[in-house]
């Protein structure tokens, strides 16, 4: 009788089972990978993934990088770390996956500086593999002279994302540096490179972001955000096929990928403007910059029940792509680390856009942990787990972790 009375009371709001939260949080769809001791401040500000490995680092200073094996659940401790001398790992560029260099897998390239008191020759673009191996990439002399050699403060001249940009697609790795206003493409074996010619109209901040696009319209895109320009180079000849422009600082972040038989370039100003450009649809003029016109479709940050507004959300601060729903097509992931989610300031979020359909990109998923000052989405990537990709978002704010969204877009046990 007493139990029945108790249950009757509970039935009023069905709130008596505080333990139901245990079931709710057991095997959660989002697994947080805590910052390892080998990584310094703002762990999760830099991310890369490939070959079932996730690499994460911090930003901007004294941030090492750790490699985790992606899985369900992902390994809580990193397989290995690189740049453990934190003083050398200042302002690392986005660690970029490179396929099978020297027969290895699970390798990533990042910019690594020197120790403050050490003038060794390990500084530069360095490759780190999950097996612990490392290799060094050749760089243009100008870059070496301007960025690597001159003194004790490499990779710390500009505030955003360092002085080198990296991007890869297929077996091609591209790099750029706003310090030297140049960009170069590596050969598949990473043993050599060729600097693409910089158009005369693109000087300031040229090389701040690069993107390598496969597909029917292969492109090596180099951005000059100060002018709102993105120069599209032929990855084979290196010649500039043309330039597209928006209001500055358009081009701070770029991401290239192939989907539905088209080559796409996502361009962001990291402050709310994200355009998805169909490279094949562009009407380019090799001598000047043009508006992308109908070839570009804007990805909007719309207010929802979870997101009161997009002002200050830094929509487009990071871009990534992956097949989250396992349908074989790519979804575009857009980070907004400044988003106030459910009235939580700077909780950050990741918008997932499905590119299918004739109406353009459509937001299909909104990822956030809604924790204050987490700045989730400062860096994002997609890691292959099981039969599909899962979103991995850096949480460099309060928690300094990686949020692995294992549920993806395919409902599973973790999503119930």
């Amino acid at each position, binding site marked *: 009788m007493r139990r029945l*009375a*108790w249950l009757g*009371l*509970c039935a*009023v*709001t*069905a*709130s*008596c*089972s*505080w333990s*139901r*939260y245990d079931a*709710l*949080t*057991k095997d*959660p*769809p*989002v*697994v*947080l990978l805590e910052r390892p001791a080998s990584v310094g401040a703002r762990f999760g500000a830099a991310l890369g993934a490939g070959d079932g490995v996730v690499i994460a680092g911090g930003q901007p200073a004294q941030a090492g990088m750790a490699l985790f094996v992606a899985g369900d659940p992902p390994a809580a401790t990193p397989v290995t770390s690189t740049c453990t001398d934190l003083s050398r790992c200042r302002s690392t560029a986005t660690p970029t996956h490179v396929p099978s260099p020297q027969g290895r897998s699970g390798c990533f390239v990042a910019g690594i500086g020197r120790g403050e008191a050490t003038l060794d020759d390990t500084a530069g673009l360095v490759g780190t593999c999950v097996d612990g191996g490392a290799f060094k990439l050749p760089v243009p002399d100008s870059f070496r002279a301007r960025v690597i050699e001159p003194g004790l403060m490499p990779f710390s001249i500009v505030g955003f994302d360092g002085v080198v940009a990296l991007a890869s697609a297929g077996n091609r790795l591209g790099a750029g540096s706003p310090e030297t206003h140049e960009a170069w493409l590596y050969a598949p074996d990473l043993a050599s490179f060729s600097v693409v010619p910089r158009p005369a109209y693109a000087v300031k901040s040229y090389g701040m972001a690069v993107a390598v696009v496969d597909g029917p319209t292969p492109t090596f895109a180099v951005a000059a955000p100060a002018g709102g320009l993105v120069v599209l180079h032929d990855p084979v000849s290196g010649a500039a096929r043309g330039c597209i422009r928006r209001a500055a600082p358009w081009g701070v972040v770029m991401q290239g990928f192939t989907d539905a038989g088209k080559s796409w370039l996502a361009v962001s100003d990291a402050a709310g403007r994200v355009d998805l450009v169909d490279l094949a649809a562009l009407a380019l003029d090799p001598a000047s910059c043009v508006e992308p016109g109908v070839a570009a479709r804007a990805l909007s940050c719309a207010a929802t029940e979870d997101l009161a507004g997009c002002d200050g959300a830094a929509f487009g601060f990071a871009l990534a792509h992956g097949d989250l729903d396992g349908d074989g097509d790519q979804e575009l992931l857009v980070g907004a680390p400044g988003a106030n989610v*459910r009235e939580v300031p700077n909780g950050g979020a990741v918008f997932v856009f499905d590119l299918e359909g004739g109406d353009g990109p459509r937001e299909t*998923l*909104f*990822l*956030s*942990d*809604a*924790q204050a000052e987490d700045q989730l989405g400062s860096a994002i990537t997609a890691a292959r787990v099981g039969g599909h990709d899962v979103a991995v978002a850096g949480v460099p704010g309060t928690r300094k972790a990686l*949020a692995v*969204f*294992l*549920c*993806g*877009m395919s*409902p599973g046990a*973790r*999503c*119930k």
Partner: protein
Amino acid sequence: MLGGRRRTPRWTWLLALALAAPVAWAEGSAIDAAKRAMEEGQSLYAEKKYAEAAAAFARAYSLSPYAAFLFNEGVSHERLGDFEHAVATFQRYLSADPTAPDAESVRARIRKLEAAIAAKKEQREPPPPPPAAKEDDMRALVLVESDPAGAPTEVWERVDPGAAAFRAELDNAGWRKVMTGATPLAATLQPGKYHVVIDKWRTYNRSESDVEVAAGRVHQFKANLSQGKFMAFLRVTSSVKGAQIYLDDRDEEPWGTAPRGELVKPGEHKVRVEAPGYDPFEESFTIEAGQRREIDATLERVSYGYLLLDGNAPRFEVLVDGRPVGVFEGQKALRIKEKAGRHRVVARADGKKVFEDEIEVPLGQSREVHVVFVNKYGRGAAWTAAVGSVAFLGAGYYLGQKSNKIYDDMKADRAAGRLTGDDARAGKGRAYALGADGAFALGGVLAVLATWEFLRDPLPPSGAQVDEPRDFGDKRRKAERTRPSVAFAPLVLDGQRGLAIGGMF
């Protein structure tokens, strides 16, 4: 005036006439005994028990030496054939009343009896026996009295049955004066019609009355000389002792209380007998001078009664059978008239428990009901618990809703694949859930407590002391209640408990 007669002064003179029936004022007197003996003798004589009749008359004479008794005794002896005793008795009669109107006839009767006795002794043919005595040979005794005594009195006999009514100022042919004297006057008379006259005397008026004298009876007259007329006698009895008797005029003071007998004026009268709690009795009648009338008033209880309510509350409202009947204001008992029988009485006073009970309204009587109100049990604790319960239940509901909202959000996040294992909301949701459960538990406990406090009532109900019925106007019970007394009672006021002491002086 009747009232005046009740306060009869010494100078007021009465004359009463008593017929054959016993007379109230003379009961127990020698004359009464003589009357009874006279009547007994007359009765025995009628039954031809002459010896017993003679003894009765003799006993009557021994009680009251009126000559009429001797004459009747003599007649009885004569009828018995005891002529010697008859002669002796007749001679005593003549001796006792030498002026008897029938003295000559009595002497002749003696002579005849003596002759018969002589003849019997000589064993010769007896002389013709005296005429057989008849019942109407009995003599009656007529007593005429006045106060003061000494009034000149005449007794006239109507010798001619066709004679006109006696009128003092006329010749009155057919009438014969048979006796003259002064009161008190005792006359031995044959049956017949007579007229008694007491002449104007001193300052008193003349009084007179016709008298039908019956054989073997004692007639007693008493004259009210001041009024100058003869009176009748009225006796009123009642089934209710002490009932008030009103004669002729209801508005006057009562004539007296039952039982009561007194002289009244001849004529038409109306008697009304009243007693509290009884329906009044009324009877109209005509009474003649010298007549005696007995009225027995059987009173029936009225169909209603009274409840006299008071109580220990300064003011309370009373309902009988659901009808408001009045308000007790703390001074005089509330008097409620109701049909006799059981009635549901309800008394309500502020701050007191309602008194309700079936009370018998007595038939034609009053019943005092002393309501003893008991304070209502304070519900402050119950209300406090109830408010607390509502507050906690409300808080529990609010916290539960908050918890549910968080849970739903987290569940939605989980379904959307964005829930982390260390989501801070889980802790908050748990806290809300625990808070809700705690609040519900406390609210439930307080609700049970409040319900218990609302239901429980340790104080007894209001009651009443219901007295025995008493007649209307009976103060006896009230006097009893005012005897000094001291009482103790538990007292609960505003949640405080104590002992109350009270006294009645």
